[in-house]
Protein backbone atom coordinates (compact mmCIF):
# COMPACT_ATOMS: atom_id res chain seq x y z
CA UNK A 1 0.00 0.00 0.00
CA UNK A 2 3.02 2.35 -0.43
CA UNK A 3 1.28 3.92 -3.43
CA UNK A 4 -1.18 5.55 -1.08
CA UNK A 5 1.65 7.79 0.17
CA UNK A 6 2.11 9.38 -3.24
CA UNK A 7 -1.37 9.37 -4.73
CA UNK A 8 -4.31 11.44 -3.60
CA UNK A 9 -6.70 9.00 -5.23
CA UNK A 10 -8.49 6.31 -3.29
CA UNK A 11 -7.77 2.65 -4.03
CA UNK A 12 -11.18 2.48 -5.68
CA UNK A 13 -10.32 5.40 -7.90
CA UNK A 14 -7.01 3.88 -8.90
CA UNK A 15 -8.54 0.60 -10.09
CA UNK A 16 -7.32 0.22 -13.62
CA UNK A 17 -9.54 0.10 -16.69
CA UNK A 18 -13.27 -0.57 -16.84
CA UNK A 19 -14.97 -3.90 -16.43
CA UNK A 20 -16.97 -5.47 -19.22
CA UNK A 21 -20.14 -3.66 -18.17
CA UNK A 22 -18.37 -0.24 -18.16
CA UNK A 23 -20.40 0.69 -15.07
CA UNK A 24 -21.35 -0.69 -11.71
CA UNK A 25 -19.32 0.97 -9.00
CA UNK A 26 -21.76 3.84 -8.81
CA UNK A 27 -24.42 1.34 -7.76
CA UNK A 28 -22.29 0.36 -4.79
CA UNK A 29 -21.51 3.96 -3.92
CA UNK A 30 -25.13 5.11 -4.17
CA UNK A 31 -26.20 2.11 -2.10
CA UNK A 32 -23.73 2.99 0.63
CA UNK A 33 -24.58 6.69 0.69
CA UNK A 34 -28.33 6.08 0.69
CA UNK A 35 -27.90 3.40 3.36
CA UNK A 36 -26.01 5.78 5.64
CA UNK A 37 -28.64 8.46 5.11
CA UNK A 38 -31.41 5.96 5.79
CA UNK A 39 -29.95 4.98 9.16
CA UNK A 40 -30.77 8.52 10.24
CA UNK A 41 -33.93 9.02 8.19
CA UNK A 42 -35.51 5.67 9.01
CA UNK A 43 -34.81 6.11 12.73
CA UNK A 44 -36.27 9.60 12.62
CA UNK A 45 -39.30 8.39 10.71
CA UNK A 46 -39.95 5.57 13.19
CA UNK A 47 -39.74 8.04 16.07
CA UNK A 48 -42.17 10.33 14.27
CA UNK A 49 -44.56 7.41 13.70
CA UNK A 50 -44.50 6.70 17.43
CA UNK A 51 -45.71 10.24 18.07
CA UNK A 52 -48.49 9.72 15.53
CA UNK A 53 -49.87 6.60 17.24
CA UNK A 54 -51.83 8.57 19.82
CA UNK A 55 -53.34 10.90 17.24
CA UNK A 56 -56.54 10.55 15.23
CA UNK A 57 -57.13 11.47 11.60
CA UNK A 58 -57.02 15.23 12.23
CA UNK A 59 -54.02 14.93 14.52
CA UNK A 60 -52.05 12.97 11.92
CA UNK A 61 -52.88 15.51 9.21
CA UNK A 62 -51.94 18.38 11.50
CA UNK A 63 -48.60 16.78 12.30
CA UNK A 64 -47.77 15.95 8.68
CA UNK A 65 -48.74 19.47 7.71
CA UNK A 66 -45.87 20.92 9.69
CA UNK A 67 -42.58 21.45 7.82
CA UNK A 68 -40.24 19.22 9.82
CA UNK A 69 -42.37 16.05 9.85
CA UNK A 70 -43.35 16.64 6.23
CA UNK A 71 -39.77 17.11 5.03
CA UNK A 72 -38.59 14.14 7.10
CA UNK A 73 -41.31 11.98 5.55
CA UNK A 74 -40.49 13.19 2.04
CA UNK A 75 -36.76 12.62 2.50
CA UNK A 76 -37.34 9.19 3.96
CA UNK A 77 -39.75 8.20 1.17
CA UNK A 78 -37.48 9.45 -1.62
CA UNK A 79 -34.21 8.03 -0.29
CA UNK A 80 -35.84 4.74 0.74
CA UNK A 81 -37.49 4.18 -2.64
CA UNK A 82 -34.21 5.03 -4.37
CA UNK A 83 -32.29 2.63 -2.11
CA UNK A 84 -34.85 -0.13 -2.53
CA UNK A 85 -34.76 0.26 -6.30
CA UNK A 86 -31.00 -0.30 -6.37
CA UNK A 87 -31.32 -3.26 -4.01
CA UNK A 88 -34.03 -4.94 -6.04
CA UNK A 89 -31.99 -4.29 -9.18
CA UNK A 90 -29.19 -6.39 -7.69
CA UNK A 91 -31.64 -9.17 -6.87
CA UNK A 92 -33.07 -9.13 -10.39
CA UNK A 93 -29.63 -9.15 -11.99
CA UNK A 94 -28.65 -12.11 -9.82
CA UNK A 95 -31.66 -14.33 -10.31
CA UNK A 96 -33.64 -13.32 -13.39
CA UNK A 97 -32.33 -14.34 -16.79
CA UNK A 98 -33.59 -14.49 -20.33
CA UNK A 99 -36.52 -12.50 -21.61
CA UNK A 100 -37.96 -11.68 -18.20
CA UNK A 101 -34.83 -9.75 -17.28
CA UNK A 102 -35.50 -6.49 -19.09
CA UNK A 103 -39.16 -6.49 -18.08
CA UNK A 104 -38.26 -7.08 -14.44
CA UNK A 105 -35.75 -4.22 -14.48
CA UNK A 106 -38.31 -1.88 -16.03
CA UNK A 107 -40.99 -3.01 -13.57
CA UNK A 108 -38.56 -2.34 -10.72
CA UNK A 109 -38.09 1.27 -11.80
CA UNK A 110 -41.84 1.72 -12.31
CA UNK A 111 -42.70 0.29 -8.89
CA UNK A 112 -40.12 2.35 -7.01
CA UNK A 113 -41.10 5.47 -8.92
CA UNK A 114 -44.81 4.94 -8.33
CA UNK A 115 -44.35 4.44 -4.59
CA UNK A 116 -42.12 7.52 -4.41
CA UNK A 117 -44.56 9.71 -6.32
CA UNK A 118 -47.51 8.44 -4.29
CA UNK A 119 -45.77 9.43 -1.06
CA UNK A 120 -44.76 12.84 -2.40
CA UNK A 121 -48.29 13.48 -3.67
CA UNK A 122 -49.82 12.50 -0.32
CA UNK A 123 -47.52 14.66 1.81
CA UNK A 124 -47.90 17.67 -0.46
CA UNK A 125 -51.65 17.25 -0.58
CA UNK A 126 -51.81 17.17 3.23
CA UNK A 127 -49.69 20.28 3.46
CA UNK A 128 -51.22 22.43 0.78
CA UNK A 129 -54.78 21.34 0.08
Amino acid sequence: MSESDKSLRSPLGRARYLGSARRGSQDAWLTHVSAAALVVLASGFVLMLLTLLSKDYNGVRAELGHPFPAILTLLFALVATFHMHIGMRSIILDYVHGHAREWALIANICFAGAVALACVYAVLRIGFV
Partner: protein
Amino acid sequence: MASSDPISPSPAARPLSPHLGIYRFTLTMAMSIGHRITGAGLYVGALLLAWFLLAASMDASAFAYFSGFIQSFFGRLILFGFTWALFQHLLGGVRHLIMDAGYGMDDPEREQMAQATLIGGFVLTLVVWAIGYAVR
Protein backbone atom coordinates in the same frame (compact mmCIF):
# COMPACT_ATOMS: atom_id res chain seq x y z
CA MET B 1 -35.35 -20.63 -21.09
CA ALA B 2 -35.97 -20.60 -24.85
CA SER B 3 -33.53 -22.84 -26.67
CA SER B 4 -34.44 -21.63 -30.18
CA ASP B 5 -34.38 -17.95 -29.22
CA PRO B 6 -31.54 -16.03 -30.90
CA ILE B 7 -31.48 -13.40 -28.15
CA SER B 8 -30.86 -15.79 -25.28
CA PRO B 9 -29.92 -19.28 -26.43
CA SER B 10 -29.92 -21.84 -23.66
CA PRO B 11 -26.39 -22.50 -22.40
CA ALA B 12 -24.85 -25.93 -22.78
CA ALA B 13 -25.34 -27.96 -19.61
CA ARG B 14 -21.95 -27.94 -17.93
CA PRO B 15 -21.11 -29.15 -14.42
CA LEU B 16 -21.24 -26.39 -11.78
CA SER B 17 -18.99 -26.11 -8.78
CA PRO B 18 -21.02 -27.05 -5.67
CA HIS B 19 -22.14 -24.25 -3.40
CA LEU B 20 -25.22 -24.60 -1.24
CA GLY B 21 -24.71 -28.30 -0.77
CA ILE B 22 -21.23 -28.19 0.67
CA TYR B 23 -20.88 -25.10 2.85
CA ARG B 24 -21.55 -25.40 6.56
CA PHE B 25 -24.44 -23.08 7.39
CA THR B 26 -23.03 -20.22 9.48
CA LEU B 27 -24.64 -17.26 11.22
CA THR B 28 -22.71 -14.81 9.03
CA MET B 29 -24.14 -16.57 5.98
CA ALA B 30 -27.65 -16.42 7.45
CA MET B 31 -27.35 -12.70 8.22
CA SER B 32 -26.16 -12.02 4.70
CA ILE B 33 -29.04 -13.80 2.98
CA GLY B 34 -31.38 -12.42 5.64
CA HIS B 35 -30.24 -8.95 4.63
CA ARG B 36 -31.37 -9.61 1.07
CA ILE B 37 -34.65 -11.27 2.11
CA THR B 38 -35.57 -8.48 4.56
CA GLY B 39 -34.68 -5.98 1.85
CA ALA B 40 -37.09 -7.65 -0.56
CA GLY B 41 -39.75 -7.71 2.17
CA LEU B 42 -39.27 -4.00 2.84
CA TYR B 43 -39.52 -3.38 -0.91
CA VAL B 44 -43.03 -4.81 -0.91
CA GLY B 45 -43.82 -3.24 2.46
CA ALA B 46 -43.17 0.21 1.01
CA LEU B 47 -46.71 -0.08 -0.31
CA LEU B 48 -47.87 0.09 3.30
CA LEU B 49 -46.07 3.40 3.74
CA ALA B 50 -47.62 4.79 0.57
CA TRP B 51 -51.07 3.57 1.63
CA PHE B 52 -50.77 5.21 5.05
CA LEU B 53 -49.74 8.57 3.61
CA LEU B 54 -52.35 8.46 0.85
CA ALA B 55 -55.06 7.55 3.36
CA ALA B 56 -54.07 10.49 5.55
CA SER B 57 -54.19 12.78 2.53
CA MET B 58 -57.72 11.71 1.63
CA ASP B 59 -60.94 11.95 3.64
CA ALA B 60 -61.63 10.55 7.08
CA SER B 61 -63.35 7.41 5.80
CA ALA B 62 -60.30 6.46 3.72
CA PHE B 63 -58.11 6.89 6.80
CA ALA B 64 -60.58 4.92 8.90
CA TYR B 65 -60.28 2.05 6.42
CA PHE B 66 -56.51 2.06 6.77
CA SER B 67 -56.77 2.35 10.55
CA GLY B 68 -59.17 -0.56 10.68
CA PHE B 69 -56.80 -2.72 8.70
CA ILE B 70 -53.63 -1.81 10.58
CA GLN B 71 -55.30 -2.36 13.95
CA SER B 72 -56.71 -5.73 12.99
CA PHE B 73 -54.76 -8.83 13.99
CA PHE B 74 -53.56 -9.38 10.46
CA GLY B 75 -52.57 -5.73 10.10
CA ARG B 76 -50.59 -5.75 13.32
CA LEU B 77 -48.90 -8.96 12.28
CA ILE B 78 -47.80 -7.39 9.02
CA LEU B 79 -46.67 -4.23 10.79
CA PHE B 80 -44.71 -6.26 13.35
CA GLY B 81 -43.02 -8.21 10.58
CA PHE B 82 -42.29 -5.00 8.72
CA THR B 83 -40.77 -3.43 11.85
CA TRP B 84 -38.57 -6.46 12.44
CA ALA B 85 -37.51 -6.54 8.77
CA LEU B 86 -36.64 -2.84 8.97
CA PHE B 87 -34.39 -3.17 12.02
CA GLN B 88 -32.85 -6.44 10.86
CA HIS B 89 -32.03 -4.86 7.50
CA LEU B 90 -30.80 -1.64 9.10
CA LEU B 91 -28.39 -3.41 11.47
CA GLY B 92 -27.33 -5.81 8.74
CA GLY B 93 -26.65 -2.82 6.52
CA VAL B 94 -24.48 -1.24 9.21
CA ARG B 95 -22.62 -4.55 9.49
CA HIS B 96 -22.06 -4.67 5.73
CA LEU B 97 -20.90 -1.04 5.68
CA ILE B 98 -18.37 -1.85 8.41
CA MET B 99 -17.12 -4.87 6.50
CA ASP B 100 -17.01 -2.95 3.21
CA ALA B 101 -14.71 -0.47 4.92
CA GLY B 102 -12.41 -3.38 5.68
CA TYR B 103 -13.07 -3.90 9.39
CA GLY B 104 -14.55 -6.74 11.35
CA MET B 105 -13.60 -9.59 9.02
CA ASP B 106 -11.57 -11.62 11.52
CA ASP B 107 -12.48 -13.61 14.59
CA PRO B 108 -14.11 -12.74 16.91
CA GLU B 109 -15.56 -9.54 15.39
CA ARG B 110 -17.04 -11.37 12.43
CA GLU B 111 -19.19 -13.64 14.56
CA GLN B 112 -19.93 -10.96 17.15
CA MET B 113 -21.25 -8.54 14.56
CA ALA B 114 -23.50 -11.23 13.10
CA GLN B 115 -24.86 -12.03 16.55
CA ALA B 116 -25.33 -8.35 17.35
CA THR B 117 -27.30 -7.93 14.12
CA LEU B 118 -29.67 -10.78 14.91
CA ILE B 119 -30.16 -9.95 18.59
CA GLY B 120 -30.29 -6.21 17.97
CA GLY B 121 -32.98 -6.64 15.36
CA PHE B 122 -35.28 -8.43 17.79
CA VAL B 123 -34.46 -6.08 20.67
CA LEU B 124 -35.13 -2.92 18.68
CA THR B 125 -38.38 -4.37 17.35
CA LEU B 126 -39.63 -5.28 20.81
CA VAL B 127 -38.53 -1.94 22.29
CA VAL B 128 -40.27 0.08 19.58
CA TRP B 129 -43.45 -1.99 19.88
CA ALA B 130 -43.42 -1.69 23.67
CA ILE B 131 -43.12 2.07 23.32
CA GLY B 132 -45.86 2.02 20.72
CA TYR B 133 -48.28 0.18 22.98
CA ALA B 134 -47.40 2.49 25.85
CA VAL B 135 -48.11 5.73 24.01
CA ARG B 136 -51.16 4.87 21.93
